């Protein structure tokens, strides 16, 4: 567990900053809701938006006059943030040894590459769980604060469970990128590129409502907060797809990373 512990130690500052960032984002978006709620104009303001644009802001079939509805809209932005975090973390945690040229130190030790990958991914998973829990707690407390003290905990728990799956998906996309790309410094860029591509795909799907089958290609569509807010449940097909994607990416990570020359 020495690699796992070293990774956590090396990344504690970064996870603190991310946690603060997520909390502030959460607080700021719910604070906006308070502003609109006071004037009672949330629906009117957004009603003035063209339909496509409104959808691009995450306004769909959800009542943004309720704290939970508003949160479901804001959830999309939290999701983008944690997805960026997970992509960069998954890619970085593997690629950094080569990028910082410490690979020669590490891999001269009596340890297999698979073991290194396992410990590093476990460290990344731990950090992802921490960020998820921070977001969960701040979301529950923030929504409660603006919902007359009552928090729709079940819906938020479901959204965070969905968020967790999306985090894992982007983490393993990141690690697969780091295992595959020839130059480790491009691993983070490749992972973020995939992340943003799938994000814009989900936006495009929201705006145009065309080619609905494309939703299977973007994790941002797997756990739709608006559906969770309205129905308090997931679409279980996406859980199956998610598990498939995660297994495929993990396999790619282990196989490619073990088979290639280290960049030294």
């Amino acid at each position: 567990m020495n690699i796992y512990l070293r990774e956590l130690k090396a990344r504690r500052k970064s996870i603190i900053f991310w946690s603060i960032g997520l909390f502030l984002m959460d607080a700021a978006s719910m604070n906006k809701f308070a502003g609109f709620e006071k004037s009672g104009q949330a629906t009117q303001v957004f009603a003035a938006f063209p339909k496509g644009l409104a959808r691009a802001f995450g306004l769909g079939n959800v009542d943004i006059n309720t704290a939970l509805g508003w949160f479901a809209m804001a959830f999309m932005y939290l999701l983008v943030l944690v997805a960026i975090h997970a992509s960069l973390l998954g890619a970085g945690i593997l690629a950094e040894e080569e990028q910082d040229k410490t690979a020669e130190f590490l891999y001269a030790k009596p340890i297999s590459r698979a073991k290194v990958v396992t410990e590093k991914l476990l460290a990344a998973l731990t950090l992802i769980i921490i960020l998820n829990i921070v977001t969960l707690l701040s979301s529950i407390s923030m929504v409660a604060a603006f919902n007359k003290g009552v928090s729709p905990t079940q819906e938020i728990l479901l959204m965070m469970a969905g968020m967790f799956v999306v985090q894992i998906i982007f983490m393993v996309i990141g690690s697969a990128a780091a295992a595959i790309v020839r130059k480790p410094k491009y691993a983070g860029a490749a992972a973020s590129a995939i992340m943003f591509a799938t994000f814009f795909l989900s936006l495009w799907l929201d705006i145009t409502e065309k080619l609905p089958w494309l939703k299977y290609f973007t994790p941002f569509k797997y756990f739709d907060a608006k559906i969770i807010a309205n129905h308090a449940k997931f679409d279980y097909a996406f859980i199956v797809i998610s598990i498939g994607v995660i297994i495929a990416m993990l396999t790619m990570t282990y196989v490619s990373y073990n088979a290639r020359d280290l960049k030294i």
Partner: protein
Amino acid sequence: MNVIETKKLTKYYGKSRGIIEVDINVEDGEIYGFIGPNGAGKSTTIRVLLSLIYATSGTATIFGKDVVKFGPEIKKEIGYLPGEVFYYDTMRVKDLLNYSASFYKKDCSKRIKELAGIMSLELDKRIDDLSYGNKKKVGIVLGLLHEPKLIILDEPTGGLDPLMQQTFFNLVREENKKGATVFLSSHILSEVQRLCDKVAIIKEGKIVKIEKMSDLAQSNYSKIKVESKAAIPEGYFDMAGVSGLKTENHSTTFMFKGDINSVTKKIAALDLVSLFVEEPDLEDIFLHYYQ
């Protein structure tokens, strides 16, 4: 038993050459030198041995075991000092040493203290506050702290001052006396000459020659330097056994192999300012192979 054994070990990086059909046998207890200029394939060979990169063809074994298949197991008994040292910048020296030790399932704390003392390391400093020479010293301690049976050194002395080099060589000799096998790559011949029993010369990815150091040093070449009052006529030393002839103003140097009398007679006929006849050092022999 051969500690390191490679058979037709070949590595290409895409199309560019790394090493070609390298055959070396390092026996138990030897200090084995591996010399050649930069880019000849020394580091490539070492990295294949450590399975940091994989051979294109051929085989390599350490302690009789395949280096890829049994990589983690073999590395328990290998100490490695890379040519260029890079460590986790934000770690403190002692934390790095302990981290490194944690990979070996034994208590290294006593040895760490000893080695840190010998190399006069400052254990509380952060890695990024260290000079390159001090990082190299950390590397030496990292390479030796688990008392490995095989020590692999890639250009070990770069960045070390002469005093530290001496300390380091003594340390390596001591480890060798205790039974460790040493594989040392270098482009600095004097350090190989000082330390090694056997030497393999590598050039453009291929092993050119493997010899015992004593044989290499005793090859019956003489290095002759003649300085005369008048210019030495061109072609004066055109005779059997002369090689590597260089003339600069009134001074001429060359390597000679054969009946020394034939050349002393020639020299005697010159009006000399000075004359040196030396046993060639490895540098000269090395140049000889590289012509």
